[in-house]
Structures are given as structure tokens and as C-alpha cells.
């Protein structure tokens, strides 16, 4: 498996994703600058977190117009894997690769802490190594992670088994008390209908090594590796 990490001006989790892929998951990975129209031949494209273009206007709203995004959309349409984390998720929403939008967190404050998420679907390339219902401890760090969509979209997401992760308690219960940002239906991550594009607010690259407090996020990378290798 080969991976690419897209770098936008203002990306700041690009080196973290690169490190997790190269040094922990141990797959070949390269950076792709946002001005490059051409995407190298890779199996997985990672759109990392950060503040692309300073998040001016709206999170992810300007990044979607970067030259590289056309190739990323083509890559996704070809059925190959795309993982958008945090700001990367927001960019995927703005680019129309995933449905819905992001609102400010319900507290109106930036939140950085470990969150528990529950695996809702394990029949995806991103979650194959998890049991259905398995909980993972993965950090969140965002000011706008309050996922929103209309009721029809939500129904469609559920009908097509697109809701992959939901915020929960350590023992897997969902509820407002365990939802850090107010997101609709406690959604933390969704895939597209073809299930080759995952957007998630929590950061698996920040929880891929025990020394960082949790290595649960590694399971997501290992699932991808297992599916694409």
C-alpha cells in the first residue's frame, strides 16, 4: 500500500499523519503540495487536519478549490481510498465528497481532549479490524466539529450504513453527556455510499502509539492496510 498526505497552506497535522503512516504503520508515504494538479499513484489519500487557509470564510471552504482537489475527487470517484481527518473531513464536506456540514461546537469553544467513539460499521476498509460496537479512545481537537445534516440526509446515511463512528461513553453508551461538540446523532465519522471515502473529526494519528496515551487509532490505519495490501 502506498499513501499520500496532502499539504494545504495551514495544514498542521500533515507531519503527524506522515509519521503515523511511515514510522508506525510502516507504509511508503509522500507529501503532495496543494498546488500540484497531479496526484502520484497511491492507494490512500489522507487529507490531514489543521487550519487550511486559516479557516477564513468557513472551515475547508477555500481548500476545496486548491488545484490538487480535482485529482483527489477523481481518485475518490475511481473508488480508491480517501481519509479526511478533522479539517480534512471539513474539506471533504465542502468538496461534496461527503454530505452535511460543520457548525461551531455547542460550547463555542475549541475542544482538545480524548473522546470515546463507537464503531458503528465494520464492513468498510477503514474499520475491518474492529468488532461492531467496539469503542476506541481517540483525541478530538476542533472548534467546528458539530456535524449537521437535514433529517432526510441523516436517514439516508443510516439506510446506507454510512455512519461509521459515533461519540459514546467508555462502555459504549451514546448520549448528550458523551457528545463533546453537539453533533447530530452523535456522529463522529461518516463514509460515502461507496464506502471508500471516510471523514472523521477524531485524530487516529494522535492515538497510534502507547506513549501518547492511546493506540486505539492505529486500528483504523491497520484496517486500511489490511484491506488495501
Amino acid at each position, binding site marked *: 500500500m502506498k499513501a499520500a498526505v496532502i499539504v494545504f497552506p495551514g495544514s498542521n497535522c500533515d507531519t503527524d499523519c506522515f509519521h503515523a503512516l511511515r514510522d508506525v504503520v510502516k507504509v511508503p508515504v509522500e507529501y503532495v503540495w496543494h498546488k500540484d494538479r497531479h496526484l502520484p499513484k497511491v492507494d490512500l489519500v489522507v487529507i490531514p487536519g489543521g*487550519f487550511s487557509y486559516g*479557516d477564513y470564510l468557513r472551515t475547508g471552504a477555500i481548500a476545496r478549490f486548491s488545484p490538487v482537489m480535482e485529482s483527489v475527487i477523481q481518485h475518490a470517484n475511481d473508488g480508491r481510498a480517501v481519509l479526511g481527518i478533522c479539517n480534512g473531513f471539513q474539506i471533504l464536506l465542502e468538496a461534496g465528497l461527503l454530505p452535511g456540514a460543520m457548525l461551531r461546537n455547542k460550547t463555542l469553544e*475549541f475542544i482538545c481532549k480524548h473522546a470515546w467513539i463507537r464503531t458503528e460499521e465494520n464492513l468498510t476498509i477503514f474499520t475491518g479490524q474492529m468488532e461492531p460496537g467496539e469503542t476506541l479512545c481517540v483525541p478530538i481537537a476542533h472548534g467546528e466539529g458539530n456535524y449537521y445534516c437535514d433529517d432526510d440526509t441523516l436517514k439516508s446515511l443510516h439506510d446506507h450504513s454510512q455512519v461509521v463512528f459515533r461519540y459514546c461513553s467508555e462502555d459504549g453508551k451514546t448520549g448528550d453527556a458523551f457528545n463533546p461538540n453537539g453533533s447530530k446523532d452523535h456522529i463522529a465519522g461518516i463514509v460515502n455510499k461507496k464506502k471508500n471515502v471516510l471523514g472523521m473529526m477524531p485524530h487516529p494519528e494522535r492515538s497510534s502509539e502507547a506513549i501518547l496515551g492511546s493506540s486505539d487509532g492505529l486500528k483504523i490505519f491497520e484496517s486500511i492496510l489490511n484491506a488495501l495490501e
Partner: protein
Amino acid sequence: MPSLDSTTPITAELIAAHGITTEEYQHIRDILGRDPNITELGMFSVMWSEHCSYKNSKPILKLFSKMNAELPRQENLLVKPGQENAGIVDIGDGLAVCFKIESHNHPSAIEPFQGAATGVGGILRDIFTMGARPILLMNSLRFGDLAQPVSQRLFRGVVAGIAHYGNCMGIPTVGGDVYFDASYEGNPLVNAMALGIIKKDEIVRGAAHGIGNPVYYVGATTGRDGLGGAAFASKELSEQSHEDRPAVQVGDPFMEKLLMEACLELLKTDALVGMQDMGAAGLTCAGCETASRASTGVEIDLAFVPRRETGMIPYEILLSESQERMLVIVKKGKEKEVEDIFEKWDLHAVKIGEVTKGDKYRVMDSGKMAAEIPAKALADDGPVYTREEEKPAYLEDAQKLDLTAIHEPKDFNAVLKRLLSHPSIASKAWVWQQYDHMVRTDTVFYPGHDAALIRVKGTHKGIAVSTDCNSLYVYLDPLEGGKIAVAEAARNVVCSGARPIGLTNCLNFGNPMKPEIFWQFHNAVSGIIESCKTLEIPVTGGNVSFYNESPQGAIYPTPTIGVVGLIDNIEKRVPSAFQNEGDVIFLAGETFNEIGGSHYLMIEHGLKQGLPPRLNLAREKALHQFILAAADGKKLVSCHDLAEGGLTVALAECCLKSEAGLGARIQGLNGLRKHGTALRDDALYFGETQSRVVISVKPEHQKEVKTLAQKQGVALCEIGKVDGDALVLEERIHVSVREMTNLFENWIPNIMERQ
């Protein structure tokens, strides 16, 4: 303000309005051999302000360099205080750390969000200007009584501003300290610290070497924001200060992120000669300092400076403190390479001048001379004053404390609960959860530990950092308080298993023209030096912030200390909190009848009184050596220092910060009572005697730990066990960990989210 152009006559009023004294004006005339024009007057006024010239503190700050020179391991101090934008210390394997702490108090008092945000931006530029990649941020904050709405507004704004800038930059804010006290009402303190990592052979100097080398202006455009900010920072806050709002800069962290990446990319080429950020005093400071350091001249033409406003005159362009700008000196012939890098990052990179022969900083405006000043005179030859000192009158009364008049409370449980819910002691998670403290995936100890700990990828090393200052101690006894500030920050670093390697300080005081304030300043610095000498920690630099006074009076003297430690093998790190049931708990260090200046005395008896605890530096040093030896042998499960609230609060923190909510059963305090003569129970439980830590140890390692303590001459007393789900001390304390957690965690969110 009347228009300021070349025809403006230099009147006595205009000179006074620039904060320049008659003697200083004469000095300027001597330097120039003529009267300055208005542009030059403005340049002198910002460069000779306290903020840039340290004119009132220099004679005292020199004592740091003198102390450094007497320390062992001199060779590890790669960049010394005052030489460059930040100090640098060798950490081995070809790597070094570059760090500094700086204040942004006055801007934050007027506009908390932007004031704090640009404070972060400024300190980060100081780090990457040296060629280092910033890897962590810390901050030390002081506000008035949190019950006051104005304090809440400032607290909320400052925290959001720091979060805004640091998070967007992608540099984790990993810790710091926050205290609340009425003395900071109207004059909060915002001290930001940054640390970067650098290869020893890639250190960049802020010097304009090489006659004919081009001088580039890179980064954001220049506007009228922050005009004269350095001068603004050098006066007391008054009721009218809010009218100074234009002197507060506006930050753009996205721009700074691009600037940082571009500068660090430039560093990897061989085109770079020198770099200097345009912070306080903007283009004036950057131009004359780079020339002065290289003993060259610099000539620029303002016509090339990118601007965001029309009609700006030379005076404004030179004094603007618009953020996110740098001056870069590159090798002649490498211009294209340099311009390509900045173009990649969509940044301005404009050649505005070049390095010249001679010693002048010459500023042209479309080919017409706007200013010409000897660079060294402007940068380094500012006036230096030895201020009058006088022991403050308040001390005699404030230091009085009659212990016999202090009645011990009946209910120690109630005291513990009150302490845990005092905002200075209670959890600051509300603060640090707004900071991205994990980005870069190197944060090993999160905020809330004694010290933050960051791994260095590609090595086994870890960098531990702690900031500290108990300003009530400094108020009550500046010398002892200064000593303790160092000891405590160093102890925090040592508790994590790291050896202190360097120290930066941010000296926040009132108006230095007042002899009593200057006496506080001098004594606190003497205290810092005493501790650094014994603990062998070099001072790498820092910042002085005077004039921290509001109409209510001066703040408590607050010499904030940031200590950086190195751990060679990060697997030997030691967490602060208890880890396993059944581990044995020891108290290391002796306990005396010391409740003066304690939070117990303040909260329970309403007294900010007495002599603070005495620091015995030999004992402190022995304690550090014991902890480091035990950590190196992996014999410590946890180690936590005793600070505000003493033994009981320290034990409570070890319980409530443990992941599993572990309790502790403490029955062995009689061993401590034997030490002193008639040790009071309130002193034993809540006193703040220095040089003490609580450690937990696996039962099978007890003997070795005792042997290590004996070797260093450290008193070690087995006091109990990690056990159950409550903190129990003899018959006096019994509180469940759940209840303590509720008080500790919820106090600040409850206040801040009530509105």
C-alpha cells in the same frame, strides 16, 4: 496628532510626548551631531523605551550573565542571554533547544483576545528567527479575583486568544500556570513561552553580514496597527489606556504559519545570512539590530515596503508593529532561490535594501533621506539608569505573623474542600482543553502534570518544561520568593525525571521609578540567581515587564520562571499521579511550622501575611539528586511536588489525577511530627514547607529507594499506601475521590459557564 513629516518642528512638547527626557535628547544630539528629524525622534523613542532597551533593568540583568559565567558546563550554553532573540542550550546528539518567555500584559489588559494572541505570535517568531522549529508553547497567566465579571472577561478572552493563535499554528500548548489574585485586577499578566528544536549547526544569527548582501522584507503588509506599541508597554495603565487600543496589534496566525514554514525552508538552503523578526519597534528595531550585531550598516528604501494602508509616512512605517513580518538578509546572487520559496508560500518577499559599509542605519523614502542613525547607538547605546532602591514600608507589617493567634480549624475536611475549589488550585482543564495540546504527536505528559513532557522523535530524549511563580511569596519576601520560584519550577521538572538544563524568566513588576518597586525587582533577581547558582541552572534570557500598575496600585511582584529539563531516556519518565493500588507512599523532605504566605492561611483565615517558607538550597539540591537517581533506576512509580495547600492537597491531586480514581490511606504522619518541635497539625497538613515531594513506590523497591534517600541525606518517611477510593489521613481527613474530583474539576467551568 498633528501631521508628522520632515517639516515638523521638534518642540519640547513633542520630545516629552515621545517619552524622551532632556538628558536623553542631548545624548541623541551628541550621537547625530545635529537635531533629529521627527522620524529619527520616533525611532529613538521606541528603541530607547524600557521595552526595547531595558534601560532601567540592565545593571541588574547583567547579574545573570555574571552568574552564568561561574557555572559548570559552560559549553552547553550555545546562545547566551541578550545576544540574540532567544537563548539556546545543547541537548546532545547534535541537537539544541531554543526557548524564551515574554510578556504581553498591557495589550492583553486592553484587548485580551488580540493581546494574548499576538503575544504567542511574537514569542514564536523569536524562536523560528533563530532557525529552530517551535515544538511547544506554555503560558503563565495572572488575573484578578475570578468572582469579578471583569476578571472573567479578561480570562475568557486571553485563553481564547492563546488558543486561536497556537492552535492554528499547529504548535501544542502543553502547560503553564494560572493564578487569581486581587492584585492583578486591571493589570492581568500574560507571559507566553515557546521552545523550539534546532540542529546545532543550523543556528541562524540576527546579523546583517556581508557588504552588498540584499535585505528582504518578508511576510505580512505594514499598516498603522500597533504604532508605538513598545512605548505603550513602557507606561502604567490608566483609565485612559483604552484609548490606546490602536497600539494593540492584530494577529493573523495563518500568515505566521506560512511565514514559519517559508523561513524554515529557507534555512535548508545556503542562501540565508541572517534573520530578525519585526516585533516590538518593527522595522526600526530589525534594521538597526541586525546591523549592530554584524558591525555593518544597513540601507533600506521604504518605497518598497508592502503596505496595507495608503498615505503612510516614514514615521509610521518605521514604528508600525504590524505582526507576522521578518527581515531576512540573504547571499547576493541567491535572490531567485529566496523569492521562489516565499512565492511557493504565497508571501511577500521584497528586496528593500542592502548591507552597507560603515555603521549607519540609513532609511530612504523613494530615494530621499528619511533617517540616518548610527545603528549601534540606536540599538545598544541607549541610556542606562541605576534606579533608587528602598525597602518597602509594607513589609514590616506584612511579614508579622503570630502563630499563637491562628487557631487550628476543627474540620480539616472542610479546609481541604475549600482549597481544592479555590480557582488558583482547582483544575485548569477548562483552560487547556481549549488549547490543542497534542498536535505534533509528541506530547507525553499533558497539562496538569508537574511538568509538561515532550518526546523528541528520532531520539530517546524528552524535554520537560514547567513555569512557576508564587507571587504572594515574592510580595512578602522578594528574595526568598525569587529563590522559591526557581526551586519550584526546577523541582517540577525533576519530578518528571528530567534534569534542569536552562531557565528563562519574565520579570513582571510595577513602576521601576518607585524605589520600593525597584527594591523588589533587585531582591527577586538576587533570589533567582542564588537558586540558579546552587542548582547549576544557566539563565538563557527572558524579558522584563515594568509598569504593571493599574489605578489600584502595583501587581504583586511576579518573576515568572520557566525551567527546561532534559531526560535522556524518555522511558524513565515519572508521572505525577498514583498508578497502582498497593504502592507505598513516602514523603521526601522535612516539614516545619511554616504557614506564613500559605494558601491555607489566605483561604481559611483571610490573611496574606507572614514570612513565606524558608528555602534551604542544599536540601533542595539533595532532593533533586535523590529523585533523579531513583527515576534513573526506574524505582519511582509517581512523584509530585508539594506546593499550594501542602501535603494534603498534593495527596489529593495524586488521587484525583490518577486515571482509575485511586484513593490513599495515610496513617504514618507521626514520623514527621518527631522532626520539629511541636509541629502544628495545620502546618503538617496544609503548610507549604519547601523541598518536599510525595512519591509512590512498588513495595519491592522500598528498600532501594530508602537507600538512595539516605545516600543524598534526604529525609524519607513512609506515610501510607495507595488504597481504596477515598483520601484518608489519620482521623482528620476522609473525602471520597469522586467528591474531590467534582470540586476540583467543576469549579472553574461552573464560574465561566454560568453567564
